[in-house]
């Protein structure tokens, strides 16, 4: 009981949103004229109570590393804002034992005209460090950020990478009992991200500090956090071991019947140039599937419409493993690299055959896109449109030989080996 650092009890936050009532259906001039004064003078608006967070309850113990995941708008940032007292809950309460420091956005308080040195002090003070604390850690901070040479130049001259490194370095050296980090690591290169993750892990394991980490990057979450909270539309959908929660995140709202009809909801899924109409996965015989054996091929079909003549539109898809790693991406440009690539207006069907003995056993999440051949412009992209289970029947000798257990790897190719005795 002593160990609980955060206890949230039915924490809720509501915002009142105003809607101007759009009355578009005027039938007579008289009605139109009569409603004008209301529009000009009246509060032709309704208020809706939008619950950003509804009755969220959970407990976090000292030294825990908890991931918070969810769709955009699920309430993750709102939860952090409540826990850091930036905004007040509408109902419910949270009890926090220990000091909290948060990193909701890098460089909070950074001023472009001030030098790196000055900004470290400024930023540190804003995050709650005293001048003495900052002075003590100054060298460590600069070393972590790798900006020794530029510490006395105005921050406006920094590259975006340096900027982010410096901002994170300050926050990383705070000594709060609880550290809340909100998606800030999305900026910054891989080396830096690894460094930050390492620091967060270090801080939690060796100094018994608690870390709450909000991110969309599943590999990062699964490598740092042991437990996870999945938020959906303001409520906790799932809480527990990270791998389970991530699975739950992915299986929410994904078409699990092998085919998607984008024309159903009347919206255009795309832009003025191209839009997608249908997508499906079939086996070699043409039947729609959601599952496939490892030694069978799968066909991905996309039907799309090009509405602008002479447009350069390429269908492509991306395969993600259940851990969120991008396994591969493919697009139709490979057909004829020399061709003009311009297509006429009309409806197209693209078929792509995924060969047998290619993917490993896993649940794959497929994102679909319509882009220009060099992917500079994206006409349509949706991340998790289809879900494919690739299954390995254990009696499949060709690809697994005599190995009885699960074979690791993102891919499972059947490769040719040549072995001969040489002496």
């Amino acid at each position, binding site marked *: 009981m*002593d160990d609980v650092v955060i206890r949230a009890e039915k924490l809720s936050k509501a*915002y009142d949103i105003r809607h101007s009532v759009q009355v578009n259906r005027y039938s007579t001039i008289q009605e139109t004229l009569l409603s004008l004064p209301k529009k000009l003078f009246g509060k032709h608006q309704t208020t809706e109570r939008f619950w950003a967070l509804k009755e969220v309850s959970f407990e976090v113990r000292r030294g825990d590393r908890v991931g918070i995941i969810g769709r955009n708008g699920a309430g993750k940032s709102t939860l952090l804002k409540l*826990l850091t007292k*930036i905004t007040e*809950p509408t109902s419910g309460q949270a*009890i*926090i*034992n220990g000091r909290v420091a948060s990193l*909701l956005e890098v460089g909070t308080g950074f001023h472009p005209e001030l030098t790196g040195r000055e900004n470290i002090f400024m930023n540190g003070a*804003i995050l709650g460090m005293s001048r003495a604390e900052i002075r003590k850690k100054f060298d460590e901070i600069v070393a972590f950020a790798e900006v020794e040479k530029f510490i006395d130049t105005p921050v406006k001259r920094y590259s975006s990478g340096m900027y982010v490194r410096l901002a994170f370095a300050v926050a990383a050296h705070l000594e709060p009992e609880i550290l809340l980090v909100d998606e800030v690591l999305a900026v910054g290169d891989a080396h830096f991200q690894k460094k930050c993750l390492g620091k967060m892990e270090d801080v939690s394991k060796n100094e018994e500090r608690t870390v709450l980490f909000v991110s969309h990057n599943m590999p990062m979450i699964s490598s740092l956090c042991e437990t996870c909270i999945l938020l959906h539309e303001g409520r906790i959908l799932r809480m527990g071991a990270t791998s389970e929660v991530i699975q739950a995140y992915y299986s929410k709202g994904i078409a699990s019947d092998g085919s998607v009809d984008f024309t159903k909801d009347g919206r255009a899924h795309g832009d003025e140039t191209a839009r997608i109409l249908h997508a499906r996965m079939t086996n070699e015989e043409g039947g729609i599937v959601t599952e496939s054996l490892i030694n069978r091929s799968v066909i991905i079909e996309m039907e799309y419409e090009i509405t602008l003549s002479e447009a350069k539109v390429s269908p492509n898809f991306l395969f993600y493993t259940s851990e969120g790693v991008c396994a591969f991406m493919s697009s139709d440009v490979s057909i004829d690299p020399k061709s003009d690539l311009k297509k006429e207006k009309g409806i197209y069907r693209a078929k792509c055959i995924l060969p047998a003995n290619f993917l490993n056993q896993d649940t794959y999440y497929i994102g679909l896109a319509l882009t220009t051949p060099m992917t500079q412009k994206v006409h349509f992209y949706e991340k998790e449109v289809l879900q494919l289970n690739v299954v390995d029947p254990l009696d499949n000798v060709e690809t697994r030989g005599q190995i009885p257990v699960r074979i690791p790897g993102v891919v499972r190719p059947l490769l040719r080996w040549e072995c001969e005795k040489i002496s």
Partner: protein
Amino acid sequence: MTNNPQTIIRPSIGLAYLDLREIWRYRDLLFMLAAREIQLRYKQTAFGVVWAVLQPLLPAAIFAVIFGLFAKLPSNGSPYLLFVFTGTMIWNLFSQAITRAGNSLVGNANLISKVYFPRIIVPLSSVGAVLFDFLITGLILVALMIVYRMPPGLNILLFPAFLLLALVTAIGISLWLSALNVKYRDFMYAMPFLVQVWLYATPVVYASSLIPQKYRWIYSINPAVGFVEGFRWSVLGRGTLSASMLFVSAGVAAVTLVTGLIYFRTTERKFADVI
């Protein structure tokens, strides 16, 4: 076992109280925000210091010509330029403080929506930054007093009290303005106008002895009357300071401060949502 501070986050109801301990904990931030503002102004302009001095000096010179020379307004026996300069000097402190503090919350919206700290620090730091400019103009005042050969009398010992009164008044008004500005952005546009009008309702270019006796106590409801007259009296040592006017004016300032604190702390909770 738990020597860790425990915080309970829950919806607050009713009026808020002022947590001085918390403000003390964040004092470093207060100094740094004020220092940042000062630094920025002087860093970016080559003539930073000059602007700080010109702001009270130039209007004083213009007033000296128009009201002193041409209109020949009474100045309690002091040379008019000196008379009006002490007025513009302390008025400038006040008007700059409320204008900058008034916009300070909105101007620091990115801080307020991302980090927690007692929001009162923001307008307070603006007032602090203006104080720095004031100290610089103090040097000009000393120079002028030497030029006019007007050494200060014993009254000068009281000038810190009036300076303090000016700051208290400024803070009180700033709290109201900054909090109101978050919700009703009109205030930002109204402020220059407000300050202009207020200048003439305050005894800066004229002595309050100009006001007919029967209107004097209404006049002293203006909280600026107290510290302007008081400051000038303490520095120049001429004329008499009406105790009744001083009390009324200072009283209004005190009430503004207290109510301002209450209003600010009560609306503070919603700042991050509205800003």
